[in-house]
């Protein structure tokens, strides 16, 4: 086995194991911190796939931003609310959980279907781009490519997302404002 393959299995194992722990753990804070391990392992997988920009962005946005926000939300919420969430629920299957189980299993089936049907080793578009030398080498500089594409081909989605984020910002500012008495 080559080193890349060993690393791939190692990182995937960490990602899956930590994700399982995060989902199963009764200790909410701990599962948030374990989720950090999952995200980091995923960033490692992105690096292995030569998508280093995506990997670093993943760390910046998820680890530096979203995880810290989740922790903040957790630490700012009252103890009583958290105790209700943390109450041990011994039953694995119950009526309350039915929608979640359904959703999860359906999604799992979809994913399995994709994996089984994709036939990754001989995809036509992958072969085409290998033939056309239109592929990424480990030393390629990706940023220029990403920047140019964001500003030309994907400009409309890019701007739409920025407007969405602006709306979220304005909304958050409005919600967190003190009510002015009329």
């Amino acid at each position, binding site marked *: 086995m080559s080193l890349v393959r060993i690393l791939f299995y190692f990182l995937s194992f960490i990602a899956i194991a930590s994700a399982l722990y995060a989902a199963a753990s009764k*200790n909410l*804070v*701990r599962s948030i*911190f374990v989720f*950090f391990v999952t995200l980091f392992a995923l960033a490692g997988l992105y690096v292995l796939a030569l998508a*280093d*920009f995506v990997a*670093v*962005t993943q*760390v*910046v946005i998820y*680890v*530096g*931003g979203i*995880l*810290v926000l989740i*922790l*903040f939300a957790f*630490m700012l919420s009252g103890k009583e609310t958290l105790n209700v969430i943390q109450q041990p629920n011994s039953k694995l299957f119950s009526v309350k959980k039915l929608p979640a189980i359904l959703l999860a299993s359906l999604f799992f089936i979809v994913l399995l279907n994709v994996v089984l049907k994709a036939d990754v080793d001989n995809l036509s578009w992958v072969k085409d781009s290998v033939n056309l030398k239109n592929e990424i080498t480990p030393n390629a*500089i*990706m*940023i220029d490519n990403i920047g140019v594409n964001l500003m030309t081909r994907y400009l409309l989605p890019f701007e739409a997302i920025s407007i969405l984020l602006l709306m979220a910002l304005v909304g958050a500012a409005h919600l967190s404002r003190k009510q002015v008495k009329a």
Partner: protein
Amino acid sequence: MNFYLTYFIVAIGLFSFAAFFALFGVYAERKISAFIQDRLGPTETGKFGSLQTLADILKMIQKELIIPAAADKWLFMLAPAVIFIAVYMGFAALPWAPDLIPSKINLGVYYIFAIISIETLGILMAGWGSNNKYSILGAMRSAAQIISYEIPAGFAIISVVMIAQTLNLQEVATQQGILATEKIKFAGFWDVSAMGGFLSWNIFRAPHLIVAFVIYFIASLAESNRAPFDIPEAESELVAGFHTEFTGIRFALVFLAEYSMMFLVSMIAVILFLGAWNTPLPNIGSVRLAAWTTGMAWGILWVTLKTLALVAVQMWIRWTLPRFRVDQLMNLCWKVLTPLAFACMLISGVWRLWLM
């Protein structure tokens, strides 16, 4: 296989450098604070007290590792390691001299920016894991402060990146001296490609970057939790903030992380704004000072000297200015630094289009 061996040697070398710097840094901090407050500082252990920090670390290693009964054991034990590793990983992408860089990645700046933000998580981990009011308060303050100050710091960095047109720190460094392949203009009009020296540093290539440099420097003080931004550990109100409960080698790791962070952020500032490993001496006619003082050893010397100078300024500020209140801290960040950093970014764009 030799290939991998080099990696290990580089990693161990960087670690021992960080440890050595922390020892030296604590000693320097105590001497500088003593000088500023008109005291003597450590004098007993070794000549001029120079072995004081060595004695301190020996004491720390021998101390008992106490875990509070109510603490979350795993989080508590892992937190110092996470805090330190986050900072230590940042060292991987810093160039020390021409052709001397541990990892030549073309995302250098971005990578360091990402890795540093992991420290926040380590601090929150320490605060929560300790299960102590003071620790959690310190951790919350620290996290709030770091994520707020990442914004002006980020925009200051972006304004440099827009001038340099690359995220690769080695390329940013090369552009600021006589080894540059492109044309360098001092303040946008005077061609100094052949002269080099301090004239071709980024802050002089585009003078608005001086403002960006100051913004970055202030933000970096906040990110390394140094005074005047040390409300996370504010000893007069929070005992010692997020590291209240840590003893022995774990406490040493937290300290090691703080001092490594000081060096790391100063070195980033040096690389981005102050010419990295380039000499400050310009070529003047046939007196080719810049050409004589550029090279591997000179590079390491210059970058170390500049970084240590910035670290000294950090210490000077710490012992001169009083601590900020939380509201003052947030006001400064959101109402002063962030708009200024935005303005710098805008000017950078215009500068790049019309003057370079």
